[in-house]
């Protein structure tokens, strides 16, 4: 099985047409299609033609994290199938891509899917990881003359180690004033079903996160994970605070298209 994967990869490198697939994530698909769209448009500008395999649904993280692994496997299997012949899989979420890193554990007792899981893990990238690590791009020529603060989502920054990539991209945006977020590394309190099951603890966490965002007096809060941003934005809206919350892909696209 390992041998076959390796041969596949080498063949892929030899062919001229590399298949790059978008993993929109379920939230990106259902709630925030504008972010998946911004990512597709940005990548098109830098010469990457994306595909969107329609078979994808959700990475299965809600079930996995809650301990329902059988249910998580059913959801995860759609990704294994949908991206089976992709060379690169790119998603606008460190957390959902991080979930793919759990697939080898999730499928440890299923040899066929385990091999697919290992392969998918190796070819999956969070959006800024792909831009910076693969394409070597840190300057998109964007301009965004606003005061911006950045929340480093836990799974992306801690578990995938994505720290420098977004910083490099933000620092190269013309006119953008980046203000540090106090206690930036503290979780926003989302945690998937945690926010529903332990609503009051989660509520205390997101309230404090929003306090810190407001302390910066930034006009815009950005990040790499729409689930966390949805959480913080929801609390800011609840408090009727006008801070604009944008995924970094959205911010960069707005910056290059002069919207």
């Amino acid at each position, binding site marked *: 099985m390992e041998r076959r994967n390796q041969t596949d990869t080498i063949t892929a490198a030899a062919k001229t047409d590399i298949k790059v697939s978008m993993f929109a994530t379920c939230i990106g698909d259902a709630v925030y299609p504008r972010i998946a769209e911004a990512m597709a448009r940005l990548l098109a500008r830098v010469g990457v033609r994306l595909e969107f395999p329609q078979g994808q649904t959700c990475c299965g993280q809600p079930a996995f994290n809650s301990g329902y692994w059988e249910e998580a496997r059913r959801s995860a299997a759609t990704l294994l199938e949908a991206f089976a012949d992709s060379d690169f899989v790119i998603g606008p979420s460190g957390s959902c891509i991080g979930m793919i890193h759990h697939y080898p554990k999730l499928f440890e007792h299923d040899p066929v899917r385990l091999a697919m899981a290992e392969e998918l893990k190796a070819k999956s990238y969070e959006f800024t990881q792909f831009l910076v690590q693969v394409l070597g791009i840190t300057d998109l020529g964007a301009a965004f003359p606003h005061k911006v603060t950045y929340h480093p989502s836990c799974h992306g920054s801690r578990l995938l180690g994505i720290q420098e990539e977004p910083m490099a991209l933000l620092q190269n945006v013309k006119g953008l004033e980046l203000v540090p977020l106090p206690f930036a590394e503290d979780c926003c309190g989302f945690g998937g079903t*945690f926010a529903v099951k332990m609503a009051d603890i989660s509520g205390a966490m997101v309230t404090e996160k929003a306090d810190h965002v407001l302390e910066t007096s930034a006009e815009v809060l950005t990040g790499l994970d729409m689930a966390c941003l949805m959480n913080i934005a929801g609390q800011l809206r609840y408090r009727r605070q006008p801070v604009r919350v944008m995924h970094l892909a959205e911010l960069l696209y707005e910056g290059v298209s002069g919207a």
Partner: protein
Amino acid sequence: MRTVKERAELALNNEFLRKAVRFTTERLRDGKRKASEDHGNWEEWRERGRQIRLHTIAHLDYYLNRFAEQARANGAHVHFAETGAEAVKIALEIAAHKAARSVVKSKSMVSEELHINRALEEAGIEAVETDLGEYIIQLAGEAPSHIIIPAIHKNRHQIAELLSREAGEELPPETSVLAGFVRRKLREKFLSADIGMTGCNFAIAETGSIVLFENEGNARMVSTVPKTQITFMGMERIIPSWSDLEVMATLLPRSATGQKLTVYMSGITGPRRTADGDGPEEMHIIILDNGRSEQLGDPEFQELLNCIRCGACLNACPVYRHIGGHAYGGTYSGPIGAVLTPALNKNVAEWDDIASASSLCGACYEACPVKIPLHDMLVYLRRRKVEQGYGNKLETAGMKGFAAVTASSKRFHRALKAGRVVQRLVVRNGEIPARIGPLKGWNKYRVAPSLANQPFRERWDTLQHELRASAALTVTAQAAQERMKAALNRRAAKVEGREAADRTQRSAGDHAGPAFVRKEGQTYDG
């Protein structure tokens, strides 16, 4: 017993507690950050610490025997206790044999696990905690709410009130006055105690010694003044040698308080010898299992025994920050407690929902000086509960529904379409503010977004045509192609390299170390 939610609610409504916990955990984590940065090679030492712990726990039977042999050769009495009750029984028998009337104790989490103070009081023996924080919570009749700062949840004024009651006069809330009172009070207790009880930070197998880290000197007093010493030790406290202690002594104080070293670090090898000026005439070491050996051989939880009880995960944890330690409901709190409490108790039916009180942010793993993947273990605990049929009924039904919808993209798409119709009843200006169904808790603090009118999968066709029509310059596209090809080649080389490494490891046999040892620089999931 109260549920996790109820206990957390008590804490969330206690502004004093939250302020005190925030204040101290911030100070501790800043201290740790600075100490590890100043150290310079923190990650290398962290990895070394992890390797020492992995090795010791993998050969725990050998090292425990070696430790017991050496300790006995030094003249100490070594007892093994399978359960907490057994350890208490052994300690009470020693106390009865000595006709002890009073005991002084230095800080020991294992003794908290045994509830030894209650047992001693019931046997008519006075037990006095001599660590300042422990003394305070003993006066308050509470349990410690932090592994190293037991009274973290109390502020100066609350402490002054407690100590004033003990002093029979009003003491001002000034640290020097309060500490001065406790010092005088405890001095009498040290001098009159029949037995000194200590914990054990590390046990050195090669010489049968125990090592204590402390800042107040009280553990020195407890282990030198009374005629009899009883040391409680978790069976996993072992390290092989004194040179391994160097690594632990680098990691523990820095991780715990940001100190380079604690004020006192005592190595105790057996009872007083003829030439010694002080020390106990008799020394007993009670080694406690109490569920620890259940973790041995369990690939998902064995690393739990690597813990050196520094408390760094508590200080880093954003949940602990808001609810403090008592909400965890066990002797050990914070992320380590949320895993340890259920793991030590094999009976899943008795687990409460403490493993659910985490957003799985991984701050605990990042802070841990021996890299225990607590955030993964929390998920394993949740899974074991579900697998054994103790999952919440509503949640189980919800997850079955989730799987039914997400297992097929056609059903997923249909569900999105249906959701769009149904949500019309509750959407206001593109948002859902109503506190209904699963949004009840969410919307208590937030406004939920609505489903998009057109999901991405429906937009894709149009967008794809538009993007193809406005394709990037050929030269840009070629550059991207080259970059991606290079990445694919790197990936192929990596697969090749890994396979070669696997072949080497296989031919090296079983002595290459435990299979689950993570290599330097790898992310948490290998």
